[in-house]
C-alpha cells in the first residue's frame, strides 16, 4: 500500500512486516506537553492496539511520562475512554491532566 511506502522512510524499525500499522494522532496538554515537548504528534501502532499500548509507546520515548500517566484522563475523538479502548486509524487521542479551568 502506498501509505506504508510513504511512512517507511521514517519508521522502518517500528513497522512489523505482514501486520497492518496505523498512525494515531496524539495530543498532549499542560504538564503532559512539558514532558513530551510537543503538543501534537503521531505514533505508529500495530492494528488492534489499545490506549494502554499507546501509553507504553510514549513511556518508551519519554520515561517521565510513566510516573504521571496514572493521573491522566484519556480521550479518543473528544470523548473520555478507558485504557482498554481499542484504537483505529484516524483516531485522535488526547492525554488530559486533571483539569483546572474556571
Amino acid at each position, binding site marked *: 500500500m502506498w501509505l506504508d511506502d510513504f511512512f517507511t522512510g521514517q519508521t522502518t524499525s517500528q513497522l512489523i512486516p505482514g501486520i497492518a500499522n496505523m498512525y494515531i494522532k496524539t495530543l498532549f496538554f499542560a504538564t503532559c506537553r512539558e514532558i513530551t515537548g510537543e503538543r501534537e504528534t503521531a505514533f505508529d501502532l500495530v492494528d488492534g492496539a489499545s490506549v494502554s499500548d499507546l501509553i507504553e509507546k510514549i513511556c518508551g520515548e519519554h520515561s517521565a511520562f510513566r510516573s504521571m500517566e496514572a493521573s491522566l484522563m484519556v*480521550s479518543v475523538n473528544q470523548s473520555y475512554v478507558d485504557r482498554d479502548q481499542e484504537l483505529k486509524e484516524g483516531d485522535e487521542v488526547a492525554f488530559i491532566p486533571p483539569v483546572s*479551568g474556571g
Partner: protein
Amino acid sequence: MEASLRMTGDVYRIQEECIASDALYESVLRDSDGAVTSFAGVVRDHSLGRDTKHLEYDAYQGMAEKKMEEIGDEVRARWDVDRIGILHRIGRLEIGEISVLIAISSPHRKASLEACHYTIDRLKEIVPIWKKEVWTNGEAWVEGDPSSPAPTKQEDQG
C-alpha cells in the same frame, strides 16, 4: 444530539478575546424569562499564599466546547431553564480579568440559580481547560481543583 433538537440561542465558546461581564446577558434573555443568573470567574492576585502576576489558560478547544454543550444537556435534564451561555478565555489573563462567564435564563429564579452553580462546578470537573500560574519567580500548571475531589470516570461518562 441531532442539530434539530439542539436549543438555538445557546452559546458554548472558548475564546482569546476579553470577556465583558454582560457579554451573554442579551443573548440568553427572552420575553418569557423571569430571571437571568450569571457567574463570572475572575483572575485574583494570589493563590495558596503566593502572589500571582498573571495566568495563562490552555484548552483542548474542540473537546472543551463539546463538554460545555454536554453540561448544557445535563442542566436541561434537571432544571426548567431557557437559554445557556458559557464563555471561557484562553491565553494570557491579567489580574481582574474574567476567565469564565456563565449566564442562564429561566422563567423562574430557582432554576437558573441552581443551574448556574451546577454549571461552574461541572465545568471545573470535566472541561479540558488548564491554567498556569505565573509568579514573580516561577510558574506552574495547576492540576485539578483544590476545593473539590477529582471526578471519577463513571461521573464523567454519566
